[in-house]
C-alpha cells in the first residue's frame, strides 16, 4: 500500500513529532508498504492567518496515495477519502489553552470567530476520516470534551528499546528532555535545596533558548547546589541519553499539563526506573502511579523534596517501583508492529 504520512513543518524546528513521523515511515516500510512523509508549513503567528492556513491544507490535492495518516493541526485537515488520524495535537490555543487564558487568539468577537472557524474545520475533518487515534488519554479526553468525537488511544512506541536495558543504580535522579519553563527543571533544582543532602540530580537535554539555559544555571548557582546538580545542557547523543537513564536511581519529569505520556517517561519505564512527576503534569500520569511505579508530588517545593527523599531512603522499594513501571508500560502492548497494524485498520 502507498501510505502518505502528513505532518506539519514549523521551519527550522525538529522535535518529537518529526521523529515519530520518521520512525512511522521506517516501520511502514518494514511492514512492506511504500511510505512517504508530507510536511505542510504552519505558522501560528499572527493568529489571524490561521483560517487561510486551514484553507491551504484543505486546498491541496493528494492523489496517488492509498492511505493518509495525519498527525497535527492543520496538516490533518488535508482532504483524502482514506484518511486516518493519529492525533498528537489539536490547536490547543483554541480549546483548553483558551480556557486557561493562555491563547494567542485576539479577545472579543474576532477571537470568537477564529475559534468557531477552527472548531468547524476540525469537526468536519473528524467526521470524515476513517478512524481517529490519539497519542494519549489527555488528547482523547479533549477531543471528546470539545468536539464530541470518540477516539482510541495509540501510544507511540519507544523507537530503540534495546538501548535502555541492563542498567544500574548509580545514586542520582535523572531529569531528561528539552529544557524550558514548561518542563520545569527549575522546580526540581529549587526543591533539591529542601531535600536531604545525599540526593543528587543530573539534568540533561537541549535548552530551548539561550535564556532557558542561563536561567537554569543561575538557579543552580544561587541555591549553592553546584556539587549536587550536574548539568549537561545540549542535544544529547542518543547513546549518552540512554546511559544517563540506565544508571539513574529514578527519573523525574514534570512538564506542565502535557498531552502525552512523553518519551522521557516511556524510556524510563523501559529501563525499569521509578518515576517522579506532579499532579498537574498531564499525560505522564498514565504511567506514574503514586507509591506503585513512583511518586506523584504536588507541584510545590516541599512535596517534590519529599518525593526525591523517598528515592534513596529505601533503594529496594525504589527498584521495585521501577520494575512495576516497566511492567505497566509493557502491559500497554505498545510495539511498532501493533501500531502499524492499527493505523492501517
Amino acid at each position: 500500500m502507498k501510505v502518505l504520512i502528513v505532518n506539519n513543518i514549523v521551519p527550522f524546528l525538529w522535535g518529537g513529532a518529526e521523529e515519530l513521523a520518521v520512525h512511522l515511515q521506517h516501520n511502514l516500510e518494514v511492514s512492506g508498504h511504500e511510505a512517504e512523509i508530507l510536511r505542510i508549513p504552519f505558522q501560528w503567528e499572527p493568529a489571524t492567518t490561521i483560517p487561510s492556513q486551514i484553507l491551504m491544507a484543505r486546498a491541496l490535492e493528494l492523489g496517488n496515495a492509498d492511505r493518509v495518516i495525519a498527525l497535527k493541526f492543520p496538516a490533518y485537515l488535508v482532504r483524502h477519502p482514506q484518511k486516518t488520524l493519529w492525533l498528537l495535537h489539536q490547536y490547543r490555543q483554541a480549546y483548553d489553552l483558551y480556557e486557561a487564558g493562555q491563547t494567542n487568539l485576539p479577545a472579543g468577537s474576532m477571537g470568537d470567530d477564529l475559534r468557531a472557524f477552527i472548531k468547524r474545520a476540525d469537526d468536519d475533518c473528524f467526521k470524515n476520516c476513517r478512524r481517529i487515534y490519539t497519542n494519549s488519554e489527555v488528547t482523547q479526553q479533549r477531543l471528546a470534551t470539545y468536539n464530541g468525537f470518540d477516539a482510541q488511544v495509540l501510544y507511540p512506541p519507544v523507537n530503540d528499546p534495546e538501548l535502555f536495558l541492563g542498567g544500574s543504580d548509580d545514586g542520582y535522579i535523572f531529569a531528561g528532555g528539552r529544557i524550558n519553563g514548561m518542563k520545569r527543571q527549575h522546580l526540581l533544582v529549587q526543591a533539591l535545596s529542601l531535600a536531604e543532602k545525599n540526593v543528587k540530580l543530573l539534568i540533561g537535554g537541549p535548552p530551548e533558548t539561550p535564556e532557558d539555559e542561563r536561567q537554569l544555571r543561575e538557579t543552580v548557582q544561587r541555591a549553592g547546589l553546584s556539587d549536587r546538580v550536574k548539568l549537561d545542557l545540549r542535544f544529547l547523543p542518543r547513546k549518552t541519553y540512554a546511559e544517563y537513564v540506565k544508571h539513574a536511581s529514578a527519573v523525574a519529569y514534570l512538564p506542565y499539563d502535557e498531552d502525552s505520556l512523553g518519551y522521557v517517561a516511556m524510556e524510563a519505564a523501559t529501563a525499569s526506573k521509578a518515576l517522579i512527576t506532579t499532579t498537574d503534569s498531564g499525560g505522564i500520569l498514565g504511567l506514574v502511579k503514586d507509591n506503585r511505579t513512583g511518586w506523584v508530588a504536588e507541584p510545590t517545593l516541599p512535596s517534590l523534596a519529599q518525593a526525591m527523599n523517598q528515592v534513596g531512603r529505601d533503594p529496594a522499594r525504589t527498584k521495585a517501583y521501577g520494575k512495576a513501571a516497566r511492567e505497566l508500560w509493557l502491559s500497554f502492548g505498545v510495539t511498532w508492529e501493533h501500531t502499524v497494524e492499527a493505523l492501517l485498520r
Partner: protein
Amino acid sequence: MKIILCSSSVPFVNGGYRNIVDWLVTMLEQGGHKVERLFIPQVDEPDLLFRQMAAYRWMDLSAADRIICFRPQAHFIPHQHKVLWFIHHLRSYYDLWDSPYRGFPDDAKHRRIRDALHDADTAALRESKKIFTNSQVVSDRLRRFNGVASEVLYPPVFNSQRFFCRQANDEIVCICRLEHHKRQHLLIEALRHTKKPVRLRLCGTSATEGYPTHLKSLVGELGLGDRVRVDNRWISEEEKVEFLAGCLAAAYLPVDEDSYGYPSLEAAHSSKATLTTADSGGVLELIRDGVNGCVAEPNPQALAEAMDRLYTDRSHTQAMGKCAQDRLAELNISWDHTIDRLLA
C-alpha cells in the same frame, strides 16, 4: 542563512526533480546554512489548478531569510526574498498546448484557464528577486511566454569526483528511465545497421511495464541478444560509475527535452563522449557534434553510422571524452558557481 527550498511533487514518484533539491540541501548545509525542504503535492488538472495555486499563496515561510523555488506552482509562495530556479512551466498550458500531451480540449473554457494561468505565472515570476533556469530552452520560454529575463544556471550532479575514466570497451551505455520518449528503441534499431560489433547496455526503470517488454522483444526479433543488454531496474550509483568508466561512449536521445539531462553530464564527468540526436532539445546545449559527442539525425541509419565512427576512430572518441570535461568548465557547471549565484 536560513533557507527553505520549495518544490512540488507527485507523492511516490522519484526523479531528477527531487535530486536537484536534495543535492542542493546537502551542499548548502556543507556551507554552514540552515536548510529546510518542502515538497508540496501538485496535480496539473485544469479544474484544480487555481485552488492549488491559492494553497501555495497561503503559505507563510517568513521564518526563512530566503526561499528558493523550483517546480511549479512553488513559485507562487510569497516571500520577501524569493529566488527561483525555474525548471519548467506547466507545459500543457504552454509549449505543449498544440501537442498530444495537452490532455484536455482546446475550447473557450480551457483557453481562459490557460490565459489566466499565464497572467498569474507572470505576476508570480515578477515578484521574485531573481530568476534562474536549468537551461536555455526554459529561459527562452520564460521570455517568449511571460516576458521575463532569467539566467541559466546548469544544475551540477552530486559528488561528481566519484566518476572516472578507464580504457574503453565496445559498449555504448544509456542510463536513464526506460520510456518511449527517451527512445531506447531507436538505439536498438540502429544496432541492426552497424557494421562494427558495437554493443549496447540500457539501464533504468519504467513507469509502466509495456516499454521495457517492447524493448526486450525488439532485441529478440532483431536477433541482437548477444549485443544488447536491457537492465530494467534502478542500478546502484556504484554500478553507474563502473559502467560509465569502462564504456566506449554514452547515449542519451530524449525527444526535445528541456534540460541537458543528468545522463549526458555524468558521461562528461567520466570523460566519455555522448551520442545524441538533433531533436533532443536541451542536450544540445551541452553536446557539440564532433567536439564532445555525436549529434545524429533521429533515425536508425544515422545513429548506426555515428556508432560505427565512435567504434572505429577510437582516439577521436577518447579525445571527445576529454573535451566533455572542458565543456563543463566552459558552461560553469559546478556547485561553487551554483551556490554563489543562488545566494548572491
